């Protein structure tokens, strides 16, 4: 098990968002957290990458183990150095940096000396980014920006790639492209954890699913085997 989250409780100020989340991600697997807006998907991911810290009025309890290392209480830059790359909701590319700089700033040799992803390999997977390498991040289209955030995550040569609602606000044709990208990453054996509102996309790109409601895991199972009435019950579709 590469990631084990046990009884995770998360707070923003006085309000509790997560009520004891349990989840597991196996090496090489693709796992999706699915749920409606505001149920705690993003908070869960932020807890894992160390962005829910006391400085921003956040607090977490419970345990998050990555490769046996406890992440709770660790600053986010150290968590990233353990091999976790984070593609946040809302993209968060650096608008004043060029595409190339956006990639180079994340460049890192993986924990086991892994150098799979270089600028060249990234440009092979995302030829569009090569074309735009000298454009400022802010000049890119939404789809290009999203490609860039995924590419930036890969530049860290991570053991685990965490992605939060990557198709939000994108045109269907770009979503198709992202499905291909994520499938390609899965084929290459990259461990993936995503959060998604779109059921269709979630089922296409994940092997296992956790359905989250009001800060708790209410259902888990293999994506392709989840009965339809489960989705109707929790997601209304």
């Amino acid at each position, binding site marked *: 098990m590469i990631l084990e989250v046990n009884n995770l409780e998360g707070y923003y100020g006085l309000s509790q968002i997560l009520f004891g989340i349990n989840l597991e991600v196996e090496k090489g697997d693709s796992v999706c957290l699915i749920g409606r807006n505001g149920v705690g998907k993003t908070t869960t991911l932020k807890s894992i990458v160390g962005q829910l810290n006391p400085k921003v009025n956040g607090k977490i309890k419970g345990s998050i183990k990555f490769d046996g290392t406890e992440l709770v209480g660790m600053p*986010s830059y150290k968590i*990233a150095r353990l091999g976790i790359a984070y593609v946040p909701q809302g993209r*968060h590319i*650096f608008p004043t940096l060029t595409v190339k*700089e956006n990639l*180079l*700033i994340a460049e890192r040799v993986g924990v086991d000396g892994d150098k799979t992803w270089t600028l060249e390999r990234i440009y092979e997977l995302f030829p569009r980014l090569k074309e735009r390498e000298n454009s400022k991040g802010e000049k890119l289209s939404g789809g290009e920006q999203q490609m860039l955030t995924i590419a930036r995550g890969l530049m*860290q040569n991570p053991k685990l790639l965490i992605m939060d609602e990557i198709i939000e606000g994108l045109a269907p044709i770009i979503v198709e492209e992202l499905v291909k990208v994520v499938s390609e990453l899965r084929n290459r054996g990259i461990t993936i954890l995503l959060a998604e509102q779109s059921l269709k996309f979630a089922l296409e790109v994940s092997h296992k699913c956790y359905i989250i409601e009001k800060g708790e895991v209410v259902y888990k199972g293999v994506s392709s085997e989840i009965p339809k009435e489960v989705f109707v019950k929790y997601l209304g579709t």
Partner: protein
Amino acid sequence: MSLSTFIRTVIVGISNGMVNYLVVAGIALVMGGIGLVNFGQGAYYVLGAYICFSLTKLLGFGWGLLGATLITGIVGYFIEIPFRRLFGKHITYMLLYTMAFAYIICDIMVAIWGYQLVSTPLPHYFKGLVEIFGVRFPKYYLFMIFFATLIAIAFFIMFYKTKLGMYFRAIISDREMVESLGINVKSLNSIMFAISIALGGIAGALYSPLSGQSPKEGLVIFGNIMPILMIGGMRNLKGALPAALLVGLVNSFGAIYVPSIYNLLPFLLMVIVMIIKPQGLFTKKE
């Protein structure tokens, strides 16, 4: 006004503008990067002047400039530690806290150098005038322009062309994301602060041969810099340059044409800019 007076006034204006630009660039850097307005930057400017004065007497002017830069940089590196608690705080809190530090630094200077006004003795090769195309220029003012420009270019190369600058630019737009890429933002903040304070120190050292400094002057320098900051646009490193030159020229020509009131001109300009273009004269509206 004769041509040579005109040219000399321009030189004086530009040289003051360039030196002030270094101070403003330092303030704007941490304002963008850490979100901190260092109202006490003047203290480090005067610190640079005093270090330059003492080292020049001991070792010569070159060592004075170098020493002022390095020592203020080191002071900046360590002073970042107590300043960390200002992150995300209200600006009133910043004002009081940074000014308290300015008072502390200035009073330490009083303890070391006393209240005496000091001005760095100029080496003989910078004294007097040099004639270029029939116009006589004060040598030291030309050197000031040259040296301050050099520092400004070095700063721009650092900021726009190096990996360190890339980190700084990224931190300015999205600090949390930079941290999530595995980069230790805290240690970069210390370096950013060191550069910011050193820029103030260089400026103070460069200006120190021209006028007598007293330690308590460190407390008012931010006031003189404010118009540049506002006219250029807060956090705008590029916009601060034309703003600094403009204010420098307004000052030098004002001193000739309206000597009794020239000090108020930059502030008048600042108020006008704040009314008609509050984001700054050289900043695009967002």
